[in-house]
């Protein structure tokens, strides 16, 4: 006889460690013709603890911060929706002095292009 377990609740897509409070970092968003740039204040974050993931149009910035002195461990987390015009293969991120910068280049075909006007 086979037993099949049917989950009674759907599997969550994000799991939270309830011992770790979650903080939403402040983020600046800039744009130019080539790319979009996100800059987030995440003091206390070390290189190894940053996670930047792009799942379809959902960009997640996450960083686990270890206990510092009398402060307990916590997590920075913020989710953004990015347009389809972003090239996911060329997304990059850099962490420096507690500031995370994420570079989201636009797909080439969506960049503004000069159209050459020929003479008849």
């Amino acid at each position, binding site marked *: 006889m086979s037993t099949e377990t049917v989950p009674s609740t759907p599997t969550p897509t994000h799991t939270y460690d309830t011992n770790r409070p979650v903080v939403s970092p*402040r983020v600046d968003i800039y*744009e130019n013709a080539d790319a979009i740039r996100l800059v987030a204040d995440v003091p206390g974050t070390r290189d190894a603890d940053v996670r930047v993931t792009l799942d379809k149009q959902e960009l997640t910035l996450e960083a686990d911060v270890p206990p510092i002195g*009398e402060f307990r461990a916590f997590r920075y987390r913020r989710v953004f929706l990015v347009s389809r015009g972003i090239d996911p293969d060329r997304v990059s991120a850099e962490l420096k*002095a507690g500031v995370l910068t994420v570079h989201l280049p636009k797909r080439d075909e969506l960049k503004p292009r000069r159209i050459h006007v020929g003479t008849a």
Partner: protein
Amino acid sequence: MFLTPFVSLDRSRAAWPDISREFGRLFERFDADLVGVSASDDATHWTLRAWVPGFAVDDVKLDATGDALTLRGVRKVEAPEGWAVHRREREALQFSRIFRFPQPIDADQITATLVDGVLTVRVPKRPEVQPRTVPIVPQA
């Protein structure tokens, strides 16, 4: 100068052991717009921590005079050249805090490190002056 809900250490010297719990609670509202500075101590040192993302070493000044340590810093936030601004949440930060200690502090003994946007300042405690008994030598 920021108006800050942080308890002034001048007024609360008697409540020194409670300061770190006070700061811990305030920290949980991190999206409040402040440079958070915490203070704690152990047997040998006082430790101050300031949350200063994006500050370079040159942006922070520490001055020790008598029994006071002044912590100051400025960070500018500018849109990068040639980029339009869609959203601006990060503020230019400027803070100036004076911490008074129950004993004179020695600037040469203070250490400060800036790592990952957190400034940690360690101020050593001087050993207390112990009472000394004066021996009385009987006249031979």
